[in-house]
């Protein structure tokens, strides 16, 4: 399997690019062929992902499947890929969601149609997403992090809703600004570190050695802007509701399921271990923004009239839990955060699929105009109910294992693995956060059940009574069953994921603790 060890990640990242290149040479009229090429490419990529899962050493320490070749020697940047237990689930999630998106779009191409361009963009997006989770060099990471911008910009701008121009440019500018700041911090890291390098493994081992505390705080702020905009954290979230509302279904799914995770992943992979002392100063503030996000997102949801916008705001709340887990700087909290990311990817991705399908059937997403879905399309209605339950954190479904441990980790960040040993003030700050976050879960139950009730219960409104509503299509079943199964499987047996993430998280947190004593 040596060959596979060396090439697996390169394949995982660039197979979609190959598929995209092939697509460009298929005439636009041959739609069937275009769809098949895209499907086969994404399936082949997922195949690599499954092989990675099978071949991964779950007890191993450090990176696996590493590739480390010259890339731009002049600036000391290398083509360095590798994955550990944190990257692996996110990488496979991204491959998995892409396949489902291709299947879902089989006969759901929004106007102005053009499957060729649409699927080419989806595949290009996958290159950026997979690359971000596999990159182990800051410059490489930056390039992959940025690659996703363009396809998403076009996806929103060309296939989006009525307000698409505003939403797409807003999305792009926010993220561009964040990544400019992030790049400046990367450069500063390079010049200030004991060893001048962009290598993420080396920088992680250095743990910010040689960078004084005040500088760390400043650099962390730069990284924070880059990642927090992507997550997005309150108050940098304003691009998200617009982007989600206007994006086509597949765009929303990819945005919610994967793109948001890139920000949180950046915190865990780059910001915390490379600038631990800066992270320590910032953590309580990140926690504060996280809980504000939880409450703000929930209240925002209660005020929405548009189903998609409601799900978008719920994303802000859910990512708040993820960020709260990260802010505790405990291995318990960060494990919860990674779980929360995967769970949110599955559940919210599914919810956006549902919103898209409902809009297609009723031509509206207005909650006040919908109703009676259970009587008109029972399967669709029950799937919506299932996902709403999963999203509000019902034990036994995946959402629970992201939220509950995150809240719990805030109760006691002073445990032996935590950093706040001597500081009673910080301890109590986090306990207050915990209470607020717990209130957030109650609100979440409120808005999700309210949405489910409005959409599914009762009778359809008069103008939709005679409408023939097709229940779940074949392409929808194929795209959704894997998601629903995973939501259930991870809910019943969360260790499936925790055993993957725990060694890697322990290693990162252990390193931070050693430095900060």
């Amino acid at each position, binding site marked *: 399997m040596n060959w596979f060890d060396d090439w697996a990640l390169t394949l995982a990242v660039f197979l979609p690019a190959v598929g995209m290149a092939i697509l460009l040479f298929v005439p636009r009229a041959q739609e069937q062929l275009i769809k098949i090429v895209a499907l086969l490419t994404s399936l082949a990529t997922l195949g690599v992902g499954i092989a990675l899962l099978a071949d991964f050493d779950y007890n191993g320490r450090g990176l696996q499947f590493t590739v480390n070749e*010259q*890339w*731009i*020697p*002049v*600036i000391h940047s290398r083509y360095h890929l590798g994955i550990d237990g944190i990257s692996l689930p996110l990488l496979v999630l991204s491959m998995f969601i892409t396949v489902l998106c291709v299947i879902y779009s089989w006969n759901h191409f929004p106007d*102005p149609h053009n499957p060729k*361009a649409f699927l080419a963009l989806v595949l290009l997006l996958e290159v950026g997403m997979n690359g971000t989770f596999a990159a182990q060099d800051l*410059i490489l990471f*930056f*390039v992959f992090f*940025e*690659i996703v*911008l*363009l396809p998403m*910009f*076009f996806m929103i*701008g*060309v296939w989006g809703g009525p307000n*698409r*121009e505003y939403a*797409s*440019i807003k999305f*792009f*500018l926010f993220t*561009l*600004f964040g990544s*400019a*700041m992030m*790049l*400046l911090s990367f*450069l*500063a890291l*390079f*010049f200030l570190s004991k060893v001048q390098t962009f290598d993420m493994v080396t920088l992680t081992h250095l743990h910010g050695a040689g960078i004084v505390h005040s500088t760390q705080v400043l650099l962390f702020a730069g990284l924070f802007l880059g990642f927090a905009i992507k997550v997005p954290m309150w108050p940098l979230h304003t691009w998200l509701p617009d982007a989600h509302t206007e994006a086509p279904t597949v765009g929303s799914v990819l945005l919610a399921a994967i793109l948001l995770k890139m920000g949180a992943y950046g915190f865990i992979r780059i910001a915390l271990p490379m600038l631990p002392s800066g992270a320590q100063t910032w953590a309580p503030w990140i926690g504060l923004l996280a809980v504000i996000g939880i409450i703000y997102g929930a209240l925002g949801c209660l005020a929405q009239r548009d189903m998609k916008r409601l799900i978008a705001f719920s994303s802000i709340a859910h990512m708040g839990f993820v960020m709260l887990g990260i802010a505790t700087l405990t291995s318990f909290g960060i494990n919860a955060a990674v779980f929360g990311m995967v769970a949110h990817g599955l559940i919210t991705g599914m919810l956006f699929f549902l919103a898209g399908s409902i809009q297609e059937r009723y031509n509206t997403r207005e909650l006040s105009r919908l109703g009676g879905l259970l009587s008109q399309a029972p399967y669709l209605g029950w799937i919506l109910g299932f996902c709403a339950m999963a999203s509000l954190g019902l034990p036994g479904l995946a959402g629970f294992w992201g939220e509950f441990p995150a809240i719990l980790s805030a109760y006691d960040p002073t445990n032996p693995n935590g950093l706040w040993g001597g500081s009673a003030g910080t301890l109590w700050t986090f306990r207050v956060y915990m209470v607020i976050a717990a209130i957030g879960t109650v609100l979440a139950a409120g808005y999700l059940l309210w949405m489910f009730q409005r959409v599914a219960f009762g009778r359809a409104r008069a103008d939709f009574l005679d409408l023939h509503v097709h229940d779940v299509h074949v392409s929808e079943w194929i795209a959704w069953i894997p998601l629903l199964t995973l939501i259930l499987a991870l809910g019943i047996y969360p260790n499936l994921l925790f055993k993957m993430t725990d060694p890697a998280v322990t290693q990162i947190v252990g390193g931070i603790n050693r430095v900060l004593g």
Partner: protein
Amino acid sequence: MNPHVDFHAIAPEIVLTAAILVVLVADLIWPERSRWTSSRIASIGVLAAMVPVITLAVDGTDRSLFDGAFVVDNYALALQGFFLAVAYVVILMSADYISEGDYYQGEYYFLMLTSVLGMVVMASARDLVSIFVALETITIPTFVLAGWRKHDEGSNEAAIKYFLIGVLSTAIMLYGMSLVFGETGTTLLSGIADYIRRPGTETTPLFAVAIFLTLGGFAFKVSAVPFHFWTPDTYQGAPTPVTAFLSVASKAGGFVAMLSIIAFGFFPSQDSWQPALWILAAASMIYGNLVALRQTNIVRMLAYSSIAQGGFILVPLAVAGDGHAAISSFEAVVIYILIYGAMNLGAFAVVIAVARRTRSAEISSYSGLGQTAPALAVTLSIFLLSLAGIPPLAGWFAKFVMFRAVFDAHTASSVVLGVIAAVASVIAFFYYAAVVRVMWFHDPAPESVTEMRQPVPAALTVAIALTTIVVVVVGIYPQFFARVGELAFRA
């Protein structure tokens, strides 16, 4: 006594001169209907001149001629290769444009090759006088080229404005150079550097003024704010291939002159040139980007964008004297020029292709191009987004090396300039993206669907394809250009 002349070292210039003469004579003796061959002769001449550049690069020894006034080293060869490549692409872009219009083909290529000859000499010039001669060889033919459409008022205005301001700047520069000579007693750049380094030499106010005036002259050539007034009108009025030539080749010629003078001459006297360049860089980035936001004509927008890009190129120069930033700054300038050349030429090539069909350069006429001419829309999007610096297109690496130089310098003033550059890049994205939005997010006008059926001429297609390949490949694997930049200064 005859000086010893190393003919291998000046072979590129000799080949190019021969090509110029052939173009001129062929135009005289050949009948009207075979005039189209001028463009072929010109492009073959440019490619032939590339051969000695390559053999010299393979040979690898530094050669110095005419008492050090003319030097062939990696730096010179890298830029000569760049200028010849640019010239080749511009000829491809001109071929159909010039032969279809009622223009004088032979003279056109004669003038263009003469200007290119000036650039090739410029890359090797290491003496104030040879730099001046090279710069005039570059500039004078372009005065005529800018006014090529002689029945068009805009073209006449373009030429006159360019001429008047060009002559003025030359006068200022020459005055500055004469003061430099008066102070140092030499016109050799290395001699000037030795003079400044000599212990006990103090920078007199007069010397500072001399440096300032010399650089001011170049600031006109590279249209740095506040010396930019001719640029928008000239760019808009001149025939579009000439505009592409002006905005890439002639501008790069100015930058190369500036870089040579600073790197090999004025460098030790950093206090006298750094502040001036700092202001030029900051002003160009801010003004160019802000005014570009309001443009409705794409050529005019690209004119302001080229002013702004000039500001980005000046950033590393403006911080070169700080800390140990010198080498990485000079590298950054060379790399930025190479990448800027590819993406800006490409953008103009697509603009020419679109204008052939719509007869318009208004941004509104690009609406729906994504549906009517997807290939042109894709390539133009690639070039514009590369100019905006979005990975994985080449522009990101140009911006990256610029920021790296800023961090290498590591002083308060350099960091401020870096922050201005960062903000300016975000602003720049607005107007580049505005065109992209019009092309992809808007629906085409009904009449443009039929207009768009006309095929793009082969030469123009090759020009677009070449520049696209460079922009995409260098974006993914920047080492190609990074290595050139490194070789130029670290040998």
